[in-house]
């Protein structure tokens, strides 16, 4: 540094003794790596070999293998102590967790290897104050560069093969599968068991230890059907049918989450899946099929229709515990509209577009236009009666 160009950085001279102690320690490690494997002289008398002597490659290789093994061990231990995943509730989840944990072990080892090396180099080769020399002109080393190309290539190839095997495992169709049709729509999951002819909304019940074949589609946006405890998700696409296979193993109740942004109420699009024993499942199906719908009270009947047909996905209606944010708020609709208007708005939703919706102006074409076909005359009447009762 010339006088006319003062260095902007001057290393502080304070606190050098601690740094020197650390430096000495690292120098000794460095010297250890340069000693011959079998010292001809007692170690105590061995002077540190002069700088520039050739490193003992074998000794460093042993050192590297031990350290790498140790690091993988730490990674594995960490996974055991602090499980990063929720309870695995399916055969597929266990398979994916095994793969994940293996990858985590390798990743943790590489992570620690790089970070520790970086820290070691930063301390060991820091510039001592007053030293304005350049370092050694080392431009590269072909052998070393081949090693750190081939070893990572081998690692990722191994991971790709293992991932492929796990992929085949989780994509294999099971025998005697239970088919469940899943339809996503703005902020609700609808389920249909075609063989059992049972429909549910947001709440799914499946038997343990029987393959399930989900067939997914969407009425509107792209949704993604995710059960974190199964470690599986698949997008539900409008106009397409996608599939997903799973065999639940652990009895319990788990969340269903929509994982693809589908509009303002995306985070409210949640359901639950209950894994029960096969006998409990059969009993539940029987109960669902024989469950007579109570049509005597038009208000209660209308409320059940409101929930069953997914109105609550988009509309807010406190009486039905609905918090949808897409369509107009229906609290007190009976005091604002007459029966004809309500009837008309269900059958032909584009006829009148209300101005104010919870998240901005209301939009045409959002509400399905086929309720006139889906609902029977009696159902429609009950629904209108129920809504008109909301004063």
């Amino acid at each position, binding site marked *: 540094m010339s006088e006319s160009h003062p260095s*902007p950085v001057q290393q502080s001279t304070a606190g050098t003794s601690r740094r020197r102690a650390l430096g000495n320690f690292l120098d000794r490690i460095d010297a250890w790596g340069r000693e011959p494997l079998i010292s001809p002289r007692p170690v105590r008398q061995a002077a540190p070999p002069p700088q520039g002597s050739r490193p003992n490659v074998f000794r460093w290789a042993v050192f590297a293998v031990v350290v790498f093994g140790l690091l993988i061990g730490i990674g594995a231990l960490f996974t055991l102590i602090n499980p990063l995943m929720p309870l695995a509730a399916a055969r597929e989840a266990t398979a994916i967790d095994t793969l994940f944990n293996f990858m985590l072990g390798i990743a943790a080892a590489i992570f620690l290897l790089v970070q520790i090396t970086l820290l070691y*180099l930063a301390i060991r080769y820091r510039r001592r104050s007053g030293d*304005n020399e350049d370092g*050694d002109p080392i431009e590269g080393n072909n052998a070393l*560069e081949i090693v750190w190309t081939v070893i990572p290539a081998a690692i990722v190839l191994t991971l790709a093969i293992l991932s492929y095997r796990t992929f085949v495992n989780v994509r294999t169709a099971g025998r005697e599968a239970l088919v469940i049709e899943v339809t996503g729509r703005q902020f609700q999951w609808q389920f249909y068991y075609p063989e059992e002819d049972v429909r549910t909304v947001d709440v799914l019940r499946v038997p343990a230890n029987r393959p399930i074949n989900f067939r997914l589609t969407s009425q509107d946006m*792209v949704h993604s059907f995710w059960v974190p405890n199964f470690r599986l998700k698949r997008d539900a696409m409008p106009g397409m049918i996608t599939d997903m296979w799973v065999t639940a193993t652990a009895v319990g109740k788990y969340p269903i989450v929509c994982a693809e*942004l589908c509009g*303002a*109420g995306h985070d409210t699009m949640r359901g639950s899946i209950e894994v029960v024993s096969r006998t409990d499942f059969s009993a539940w199906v029987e109960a669902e099929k024989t469950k007579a719908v109570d049509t005597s009270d038009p208000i209660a009947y209308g409320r059940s229709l409101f929930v069953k047909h997914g109105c609550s996905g988009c509309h807010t209606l406190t009486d039905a515990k609905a918090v949808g944010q897409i369509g107009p708020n229906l609290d007190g609709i009976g005091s604002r509209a007459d029966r004809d208007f309500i009837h008309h708005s269900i059958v032909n939703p584009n006829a009148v577009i209300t101005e104010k919706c919870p998240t901005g102006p209301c939009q045409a074409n959002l509400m399905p236009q086929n309720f006139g076909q889906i609902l029977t005359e009696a159902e429609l009447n009950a629904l209108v009666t129920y809504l008109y009762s909301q004063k």
Partner: protein
Amino acid sequence: MVFNTDHKVIGVQYLVTTFIFYMIGGILAMIVRAELAQPGMQYLTRAAYNQAFTMHATLMIFLWVIPVFAGFANFIVPLQIGAEDMAFPRLNAFSYWLLLFGGLLMMSSFLVSAPGTGWTAYPPLSLLDSPGETVWAMSLFVIGFSSIFSAINFLVTIAQMRAPGMTWFRIPLFSWAIVATAIIQVLATPVIAAAMILLIFSRVTGAQYFVAIAGGNPLMWQHLFWFYSHPAVYVMVLPAMGIVSDVLPVFSRKPIFGYKAIAFSSLAICFLGFTVWAHHMFASGMNPTLTIPYMITSMIIAVPTGIKVFSWLATLWRGKLRFTTSMLFATGFVSLFVIGGLSGIFLASVPVDLHVTDTYFVVAHLHYVLFGGSVTAVYAGLYYWFPKITGRMLDERMGKVHFLLHFVGFNLAFLPMHQIGLEGMPRRVADYDPQFGALNLVVTVGAYLLAVSTLPLIVHALVSMKRGVLAGDNPWRAKTLEWKTSSPPSLFNWDEAHHPLVTEGPYDYGHKPAAKPVAAETEVARV
């Protein structure tokens, strides 16, 4: 002065403009994190929340990380290769003004209600979203052309305007990275421009490209979008790697380890980057069997990336490391980028991805790559080249405060996100299950620390511009060509005293005894 065609002025215009967009994007991030600090809805409606994170991502990607590197490249590349300006100075100015116009257009979408579909804008959601979506698509179309024009300019400049003696293998690695980046921009950006046109047509004229029942396909958008947007990740990361490859040798006082390996790995990443886009779609409607080839190519990208990381470590080995702020950020880049690279391998594995895609694990991964990686490297480049750009040094003590806040705040903000995602929290949600409350609070604290970390930078950059220590031509005793002219350089970069003639590599440290004080003039005289 304003409508200037000097590459240095345009470079500074880029840097200042993008930094302002960075601040706006940062404020949006603070709004998002405030809402997510605890479960339940506190400050925003759900629709406003969606707008906030959509605009945060769009501004950060298209108006900060991508163009900030164009800013550095504009200032530095012609200097590094010994050119007097860019090949097409007026086109260069046009690129900048397109970017500014596109950026203002983007901001104007707030006036008509900003888009709330995420920066990925998947139809059908993006077909039905607020009118701001059309403005958003139009502004990305404009910004895309800014990107294409500047990329063509860099390719021609580097191919044609090199000084005598500047052979391809004497080009500094930052300029090499810009070559790889520009190739990606020229080949991939037209695809996103086409996609934006289809989206605008769909919204304005009711065209049905993405509507399945009308014979269109919503998956087509995802393919078009990611065909650009995955290579765009390398547009954001390759220049960062280039900066780090330039900074590490200077402060290690050693040649870069494996120069050709680093240069060729940039080209390998550039090529492979075009073959991996569908790894964003493993859980989508595409044929599951087709995911396997994408998994393999995605994993292979780890190999050239690994070559770079190990080469950087080997560059430090037996050096004389001087931990200036720039060097701290460069080594910080290596440390943080490795984490993003490793989590990327999990996302590349199809079965693991089926669990972690569209969760906070992805949010953590992309921020480790684009913030811990790219932005950390931007800071390294800023502290390194600020003396060349302004002629004055940045304050090193303030710089170290900045680094400390940045490093601690960053890890606090993004490390817990990995676990949040693995445990089951999806991304892009305004509210979440209370079980994730504690970790989300930690994330928010880290995010605010990160916001605070930019304050020392802004303050001392403004002060240093006026009152900093005079830098001189070559305060870091660096060997690349930009340090062999005055700081700031004169209008056409090279006056009589500084004539670019290249006789050695960019990182030839340690070949001769360098104990004697070396002033820039004697350096040049030797050349």
